C-alpha cells in the first residue's frame, strides 16, 4: 500500500463524483425523449397546431433540462472550482 496525500485523495474522489453526478442525464434524456415523442404524436394528429406545439415543446425541454444542467454545473464545480481542495 503506497501512501498518498489528502489532496490526491480529494482530487481522485472529486473526479469520480463528477462522473457520478452526470448520471442524472439518464433521467433528462428519457424526459426529453418522451416530450419530443408526444409532440410528434400530437403534430401527426393535428398538423395545423405545429407552431404552438413546437413552442410548448421547447419550453418543456428547457424545464426538463434544468435537472441535467444542475448536475453539469456540479460536475464542472468539482473538476475546475473544487471548494474542498485545500
Amino acid at each position, binding site marked *: 500500500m503506497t501512501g498518498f496525500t489528502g489532496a490526491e485523495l480529494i482530487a481522485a474522489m472529486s473526479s469520480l463524483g463528477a462522473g457520478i453526478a452526470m448520471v442524472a442525464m439518464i433521467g433528462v434524456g428519457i424526459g426529453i425523449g418522451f416530450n419530443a415523442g408526444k409532440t410528434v404524436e400530437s403534430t401527426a394528429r393535428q398538423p395545423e397546431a405545429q407552431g404552438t406545439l413546437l413552442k410548448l415543446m421547447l419550453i418543456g425541454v428547457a424545464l426538463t433540462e434544468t435537472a441535467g444542467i*444542475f448536475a453539469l454545473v456540479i460536475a464542472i464545480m468539482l473538476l475546475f472550482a473544487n471548494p474542498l481542495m485545500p
Partner: protein
Amino acid sequence: MEVGPRIIFSIGSVNFTETVIFGWIISIIILIFAFCATRNMQRVPKGAQLLGELLVGFMYKMVKDTMGEIGEKFTPYMGTLIVFLGFGSMLGLLELRPITADLNCTGPLALISFIMIHYNSIRARGFIGYNKHMASPYLWMWPLNLMSECMFPITLACRIFGNIFAGVIVMTLVYSGLETASHALGSPIPFFQIGFPLPLNFWFDMFEPILQAYIFTMLTMVFIATGRTVDED
C-alpha cells in the same frame, strides 16, 4: 485547462474580465447598428433599415403571441435580451470566450427577469391578491411557494450558463485533440483543425445560442404573463 474568464485589466481591486469587455463591445455594436438603421429612413426599407424592421416586427409578433395585448410594453426588454444573449453566446465563432459562459453575466439578467415578474405580479394582482396567490392552496404553503419562486432565477441563469459553458469545454477539447492528432502525423501546422470542427461549431456556436436565448426570453415572457393573471375565485 484554463476555464475562467481572463482578466484583461484591473483598476484597484475591480477586475475587468473578458465578460465585461465583450459585453461592452456587443452593446456598442448593437447601439451603432440601431443608430445607423434609424438614420435617413425610407418608406421602402433597404439595407440596415430592412434588417432592423424585420427584427423589431418579429419581436413584436412573438411577444404578442405569447403574452397577449399587454405584451406590447415588454417588447423592448425582450428584444434587447434575445439580441444580447444571442450575440453574446455566439462569440465562440470568433474564437473568443462567449460572455454567457460566465455566471456573472447570466445571473444579473435572470435577477432582472425575476424582479420584473414579481413587480408586475404585485401590480396586476395587488398586494393582497399576490399574497393570496402565494398562499394557495393552503396558508402553510407560502414559504414553499416562495422557495419555488426563488429557484426560478437560479435555474434560468444556470441553464444558459451550463449549456454555453459545456459547449466551450467541448470545443476546447476538440480543437486541442485535433492539434495533437496533426502533430502526431509530424506536421507543424494543425491542419486537422480546418473544416473538421465545422458541424460542432454550427451546433455549439450557432444553434445552441439561438435556442438558449429564445428559451431565456420565452420563459421570462411566460412567467410574466402567468404572474399577471388574476384568479377568478
